[in-house]
């Protein structure tokens, strides 16, 4: 049982490594165009490996931060804490987090308008309930 679980985990890890390698390749291509340089295959593989290992550190930190806040779900607050070591990085991540929050608000607003237009007149309380229901089904 345990051996099968470990093997499954290994297969998943390999697939994720492949996914990371692919994305790193794409991002490196952008840098190549920007800076007029060329990355050797080994360099791209090394960046992928570093990124994959960095993910492990990120994951363990995020889990600890969430647990410290007595949560089992990692939130954007935990991610902001992850970016604490560099000032400019923290600023950038905080700004991105605010952008995400405001785009969520906008979407909620749109849905609210849509649902109130579609369903005609309803009391505000009922509308609110309809919006949250919609959102849950979309997120899944």
């Amino acid at each position, binding site marked *: 049982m345990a051996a099968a679980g470990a093997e499954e985990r290994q297969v998943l890890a390999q697939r994720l490594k492949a996914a990371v390698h692919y994305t790193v390749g794409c991002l490196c291509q952008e840098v190549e165009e920007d800076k007029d340089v060329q990355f050797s295959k080994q360099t791209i593989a090394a960046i992928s490996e570093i990124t994959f290992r960095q993910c492990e550190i990120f994951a363990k930190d995020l889990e600890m931060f969430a647990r410290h806040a007595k949560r089992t779900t990692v939130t954007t607050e935990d991610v902001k804490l992850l970016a604490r*070591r560099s000032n400019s990085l923290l600023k950038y991540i905080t700004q*991105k987090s605010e952008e995400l929050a405001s785009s969520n608000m906008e979407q909620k607003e749109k849905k609210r308008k849509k649902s109130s237009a579609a369903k005609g007149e309803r009391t505000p309380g009922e509308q609110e309930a309809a919006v949250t229901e919609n959102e849950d089904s979309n997120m899944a």
Partner: protein
Amino acid sequence: MAERGGRAGGFRKDTVDRLLRLHFRDGRTRVNADAQLLVAELLKVFVREAASRAARQAQAEDLKKVDTEHLEKALPQLLLDF
């Protein structure tokens, strides 16, 4: 959702989720949607920094081909910044 889930040139949201969950010690730990997107952004910055710092090192040595030795030189500071 589609345009945010599969953002061109970055990490996909569900890839990030699986990557994180692979390393969690407690199977009950979850990552909310915004946090997934934010970690994807953080990873993108990490990779771009790794690549551009290695590229800058190669350029400082008057080379156009970036090799692992250039990455090696940029690595300590990169890891201190993240």
